[in-house]
């Protein structure tokens, strides 16, 4: 168990709902779920969720902390917002799923090697570096995340698409040497660092 995780267990003991309400983005909405299941039926990746959102909500109320936070399910969210607009109680389900996944990731107990977890981290690190996304490096980091050999294999498989994009001037091979970035990168990084510090403090994750 990571430090943050064991501290959270000690602090909230058996009250997982309270932990979610205080630490997960939009977590205070969880108790409003009335278990109708419209979210499950509305999800484009619904078939791939071991626990649908309404199940996760009930599991939170039942205190099934480990099952929820180590679940692969909320990583299936494509951010399509179908559940949000259809929920009769108007729960911001997409955000709660993001919040649960992000919290589990922050505690270090989200499933290891989960592809969306890995890609999400690559994406954020990519944009945080220069303030804007470097699409070439983003793609390459994803291909090569499991090492050189599998990276070359994936990249070769996608070669015709990549070349097509370069030819259509929608991918720039020169981005490898830098690419688009902010003038006030120092300020941007200062904002990020400060925001992280405030949020961690508020959530007791320092």
């Amino acid at each position, binding site marked *: 168990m990571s430090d943050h995780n064991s501290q959270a267990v000690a602090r909230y003991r058996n009250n997982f709902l309270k932990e979610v309400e205080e630490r997960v*983005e939009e977590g205070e909405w969880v108790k409003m779920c009335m278990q109708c299941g419209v979210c499950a039926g509305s999800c*484009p*990746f619904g078939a*791939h969720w071991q626990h649908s959102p309404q199940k996760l909500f009930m599991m939170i109320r039942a205190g099934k902390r480990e099952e929820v936070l180590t679940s692969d399910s909320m990583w299936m969210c*494509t*951010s*399509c*917002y*179908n559940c*949000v*607009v*259809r929920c009769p109680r108007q729960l911001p389900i*997409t955000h709660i799923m*993001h*919040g649960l996944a*992000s919290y589990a*990731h*922050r505690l270090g107990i989200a499933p290891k090697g989960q*592809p*969306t*977890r890995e*890609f*999400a*981290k690559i*994406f*954020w*690190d990519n*944009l945080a570096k220069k*303030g*804007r*996304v470097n*699409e070439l490096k983003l*793609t390459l980091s*994803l291909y090569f995340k499991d090492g050189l050999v599998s990276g070359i294999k994936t990249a070769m498989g996608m070669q*015709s*698409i990549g070349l*097509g*994009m370069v030819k*259509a*001037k*929608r*991918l*720039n091979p020169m*981005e490898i040497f830098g690419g*688009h970035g*902010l*003038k*006030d990168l*120092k*300020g*941007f990084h*200062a*904002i*990020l*660092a*400060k*925001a*992280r510090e*405030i*949020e961690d403090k508020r959530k007791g994750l320092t």
Partner: protein
Amino acid sequence: MAKKEYAFYPGCSSQLKASASNYLTSVSSMCKTLDVKLTEIPDWNCCGASIGYAEGGELPRIAINARNFALAETHLPGQDIVATCAACWLGARESKDRLDASSTLMKETNEALAAAGLHYKAEVKIRHMVEVLIEDFGYDELKKPMKKSLEGVKFAGYVGCQTNRPFGIDGESFENPKYLDKLVETLGGEPVEHYDQKVTCCGGALAFSEPEKSQKQIRDIVESAYDHGAEMIVTPCPLCQANVEVYQSEINKKQGTQFNMPVLYYSQLMTVAYGGSMKDAGLDGQLIRAEKLEVITKK
């Protein structure tokens, strides 16, 4: 002086030689015809997109969006922020709504912004380019500068997710928004009826991390367009455009389909109808060429 002015938030994918650079090309051409002046928010940053949630957390994402707002308020006072990318629009608008609703978040965000000498006053309005077209111009106004009709071309209006949910455009329904169809009709084209994958998710960012699951979505979207007699797909979202166009060859390879369906932006259709060249409309940026539109540009 231009008729209308906006603080422009193009987003990462619309930059030079990025995956939606042809979107930007066509938006610029379209706005020139409509006498719209777009001034880029100086030194704007990425919105974090939806997929930024896992590593980014809540406040850092809101704070970087607020950085753009503060820059717009300072350098382009009084102008609405206009985004062309669905994710940029959503990320920005969501951040603004959260800030409006919570004085705590507002205080914390401004504390973070102060680290770069910035301050957000909560004066901005966040809009999507499609809202500008429909609300500030309206279909009749958009028809006026037309030089060519898109007559005889059948389009499947693929709205997708984030230009539709959760905010919607012009108060239209989430299940069956009509604005793309109306826009196609305005330009003389033929919107296909009952296109049942109109608001289906293409997988979004998970096209990268869960390619097989996403390609099933994309297959449905393209297949249904064929089934309903469409010759092209038109969309307002750069990620929808890229996913639905780029992966057709992969799906063909893996599943033996023969997809070859062009996927266009509404702004490309408008540029062609306004008499723009192939280059003005960014048609040279298609991986799957939109030949019928290319022919119209040469008429």
